[in-house]
């Protein structure tokens, strides 16, 4: 098992390195940081532009591979370079990482757990009203893009607040800067701001996994070994949990890694719509702002997260599936 995981880890690290390098080269070719200095009033002389851009390793007159070399030697030393205006990408990323981190972590875990539980439950109750309700709900959610869901929840929150006459749900920003009171008031305020974005991400992740888990569970429920487990005298819930659910979890866990990338993309919408200053929002603003180094740093962040998710998946599958442990 250890050897297997080590091999996987090396493989993932290589993939992350190549993915990040690819993102750097694509961004360096595609984006134009010079646009920030062109057309200014008073005009910035071209020599001055070149000087500034070269200083930040953003000069498009330097060959891409040379810029890549400079960038890489910096990254090896843990420095993701400078933004177009000379600010450090590291400090920007360092601040925003935790903002996205809490959203993604809570959203992914809740989404995963709810999705798997709901899927397994729906499969056990196949064709009853519980199943019909859950399946239809997931099916409609699956057809709802993240940005539509986020805006809908926001509108619903505003209407609800208006109807109650009191701001029950916060629908914009990470916290209320004017919040008075002590630690608990601030904590409560932050939690309240977290509710709607988290609900959006959770629903997105859960709907996807729920339908998948339901199918996987249905395939397993009719199998001989579940019947044998019942026949040897296990209680229904025990048989379902130990024999059916455990087997049916494996394909869903495999899907989970790929759904993680989807959840990050979902987070870019959620952050932008709810005014969270996280990595997703940074991705959008840095592409719009032609900020090569920032774009690459965000890509690296996503690649590392997907890597962690894949690695976690390997461990969970290893625990669930004895064949992997032996092999």
């Amino acid at each position, binding site marked *: 098992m250890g050897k297997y995981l080590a091999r996987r880890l090396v493989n993932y690290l290589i993939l992350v390195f190549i993915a990040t390098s690819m993102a750097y080269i694509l961004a360096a070719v595609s984006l134009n940081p010079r646009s920030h200095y062109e057309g200014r009033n008073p005009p910035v002389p071209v020599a001055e532009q070149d000087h500034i851009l070269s200083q930040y390793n953003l000069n498009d007159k330097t060959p891409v591979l040379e810029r890549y070399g400079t960038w890489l030697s910096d990254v090896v030393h843990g420095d993701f370079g400078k933004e177009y205006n000379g600010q450090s990408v590291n400090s920007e990323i360092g601040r925003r990482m935790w903002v996205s981190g809490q959203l993604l972590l809570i959203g992914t875990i809740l989404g995963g757990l709810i999705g798997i539980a709901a899927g397994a439950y729906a499969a056990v109750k196949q064709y009853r009203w519980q199943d019909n309700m859950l399946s239809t709900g997931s*099916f409609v959610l699956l057809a709802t893009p993240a940005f539509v869901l986020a805006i809908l929840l926001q509108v619903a929150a505003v209407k609800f607040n208006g109807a109650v006459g009191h701001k029950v749900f916060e629908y914009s920003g990470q916290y209320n800067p004017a919040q008075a009171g002590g630690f608990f008031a601030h904590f409560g305020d932050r939690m309240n701001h977290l509710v709607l974005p988290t609900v959006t991400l959770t629903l997105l992740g859960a709907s996807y996994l729920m339908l998948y888990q339901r199918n996987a569970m249905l395939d397993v429920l009719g199998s001989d070994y579940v019947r044998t487990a019942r026949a040897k005298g296990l209680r229904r819930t025990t048989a379902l949990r130990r024999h059916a659910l455990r087997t049916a979890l494996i394909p869903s866990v495999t899907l989970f890694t790929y759904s993680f990338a989807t959840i990050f993309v979902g987070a870019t919408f959620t952050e932008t719509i709810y005014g969270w200053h996280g990595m997703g929002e940074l991705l959008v603003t840095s592409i719009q702002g032609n900020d090569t180094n920032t774009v690459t740093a965000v890509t690296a962040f996503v690649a590392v997260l997907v890597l962690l998710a894949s690695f976690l998946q390997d461990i969970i599958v290893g625990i669930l599936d004895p064949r992997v442990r032996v092999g």
Partner: protein
Amino acid sequence: MTVPPEQLMGTVTAESGIAGQATLDETRVPSRRRVVWRRFVRRKTALAGLILLALLVLMAFGGIHLTHWKYTDHDFNALQVGPTSSHWFGTDLTGKDMFAATMRGAQKSIVIAFLVALMATGIAAIVGSFAGYFGGWLDRTLMWVVNLLLIVPSFLIIAILSPQFHSFWLFVLLLGMFIWQITSRIVRGQTLSLREREYVLAAKYMGVTGPKIIARHIIPNLASLLIIDATINISVAVLTETGLSFFGFGVQPPDISLGTLIADAQASATVLPWLFLFPAGFLVLFVLAVNLVGNGLRDALDPTSGSSR
């Protein structure tokens, strides 16, 4: 080898032997297309999805002629009004008719979705079958590329490259080039088992070349899978396109898509809900219809999959 040819013919039908030729005429075997169609129609949700999809496409392409407003028109006598008899979906801040705009945006999104789905499924079929059939270094290289593309979300790559494309076709090409990865893995898996079948081996030992075997034997045997996949890819494509357009990374002005319409409506969604609800509603219904048809097709084409997704 001593069986006379008539008897051989007889064994083909369900009631073989004695009656021979006579029963062959009477037991009419329904064609595969009929069987699939019957199975598809039997599922009410699939049929409902198909009807909904047809209505939406008809509405997007035909509905535009029902109103005299164009999506570029501005009615300065009716700014920011809700749905009325003249402006069915209301108007925005500049008096733009939302019905005309939604239909125009829907046209764009639908055309992109169909083209992209076709392209993505095509690429997936070629990459997957070549990797699976030939194996070896080709397989390893192709699957490695697939894994790489799965680590970086394609959404991100297209967004990074977006300043480069101001042409519609380039955008379609890019979308198609980045959403085929998962399907290609499924195709590869299927090819691995197909490649050991007798008819494929027979063709191989007769000296038929690899690409020809793939075109004649492998791809036709994967037809069901590919049809289902192309349908599901339509919804993936439309979601990716509208998402990119929402951020301004997709369809560029003066063109509009459902994504740009929803982005424009976002700021005023609480005050002028019709700006948001109509494009968003169209989008959700379209994706829902496509998914329903996709599921129906899966059950009809591949009843053993036992899937009701």
